[in-house]
């Protein structure tokens, strides 16, 4: 399978790899996928409680190149956005940006799920 240049770039130079402290009240963690399915994404956001702006984002992904690229791109996109703006990111935006083929659309869905799960986790801490 041929990968798009953008997928290859994210795979070779993944943005925002790493981990934030899960217990930190300013951090929301999303863990989606399952090892049996071949994809697991962990996406974390650090949110300013006053402004609800995502000040930092980190990810780690077990999965194919498209899964790595989708989550890398997701962290890039959510940084600097408010929670409401981040929630508006759709998997189709990721598909378009990375030129993902139909068999890899699930990777973008997973990345969208990861953003939502991280936001949900953060909101739980602040409810």
């Amino acid at each position, binding site marked *: 399978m041929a*990968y798009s240049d953008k997928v*290859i770039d994210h*795979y070779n130079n*993944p943005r925002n*790899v790493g*981990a934030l402290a899960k217990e930190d009240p300013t951090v929301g963690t999303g*863990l*989606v*996928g*399952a*090892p*049996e*399915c*071949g*994809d*697991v*994404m*962990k996406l974390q956001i650090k949110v300013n409680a006053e402004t609800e702006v995502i000040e930092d984002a980190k990810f*780690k*992904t*077990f*999965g*194919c*190149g498209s*899964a*790595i690229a989708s989550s890398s791109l997701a962290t890039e996109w959510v940084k600097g956005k408010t929670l409401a703006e981040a929630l508006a990111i759709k998997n189709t935006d990721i598909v378009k940006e990375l030129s993902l083929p139909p*068999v890899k659309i699930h990777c973008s869905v997973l990345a969208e*799920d990861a953003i939502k*799960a991280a936001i949900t986790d953060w909101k739980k801490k602040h409810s």
Partner: protein
Amino acid sequence: MKLPIYMDNHATTPVDPRVLDAMLPYFTDRFGNAASRNHKFGWEAEEAVEEARKNIASLIGADPREIVITSGATESDNLAVKGVAWMYREKGDHIITCVTEHKAILDSCKHLEKDGYRVTFLPVDNKGFVDLDDLRKAITDKTVLITIMTANNEVGVIQDIKQIGRIARERGVLFHTDAVQAAGKIPFNVNEMNVDIASLSAHKMYGPKGVGALYVRRRNPRVLLTPVIDGGGHERGMRSGTLNVPGIVGFGKAAQIARDELASESAEMFRMRERLRTTLERELDELYINGDLEKRLPGNLNMSFAYVEGESLLMGINDIAVSSGSACTSASLEPSYVLKALGVGEDLAHTSIRFGIGRFNTEEEVDYVANRVIETVRRLRDLSPLYEMAKEGIDLKSVHWAAE
């Protein structure tokens, strides 16, 4: 050293230059139809085919008259399974095979099931072996064929063919083996191993694609087959169609080289395989070998790199050609059915890589591959949430995954 490196020799092998040299005249000067009985062109072609047939037979200890030329192993497998089932329909309607067989066998069996035949698909243990007691118990007075491959194409595991053949013979059941991966790589003799029918392929032994053979025993017992392809009655009526003379000449040459060099070549494959395996195991933790390590093709290494998805690993070593059992690399989106049959969990199946070392690989290439794999696995593990969790002592099996 030239990049990319080819280390996927179970999928196919390059044509040996000596094989190509032998083939070339048969495309142009000696282009005759081996079935033309009344001129020099035909005689020349026929002579070349018979010489090749001798070499193919000699590789497996057979008589040249027992070699039926086909278009490849898929056709050979189809002819063996369907040919026996159709020929011996009066005698019985039961076939025994195994879950890790090649799709050409499994799908031929499933085809027959739809036509009313009964098929037993024997399981394998976690090393990849068929249990001989299971086999004995599965045989009934309606069993006409046992078909078990000699060496598996994914995990390289070598079955106890001699014993399986003995059991089949004791019970008066014909025994077919798909010997595609084994022939030319390990000693394989149809008489010593009690084999009645065997599938071979040229392109797995440094011959050309599009040509294969089916060994069909002529005596003790004499095996009869109903042809799958009807026509001009070539190959003693078992496989019609104008013979692919250059391909057959190449197959013959490939078989001759494989026979002459088998001992030294298999020792060299084994040495390089072990060099690759021990280097990887020294430098990386949490590696799992899929299938038995001892009874295995010398050039095969099938390994799971836990917490690193196979396709992403392949992407990282994109100057090396190997295969993965990961779902993402196959058209079916299912991880390897062979690994599944061995009880390898889907999580580990997704992280498996098959290395197939062949005649033209060098030690320098093996070292390059080892280093590239090591650095890529390390990089991807740094990126893997599963590796991080495992290192934190979290039991991944106990995690409630959102996708489940």
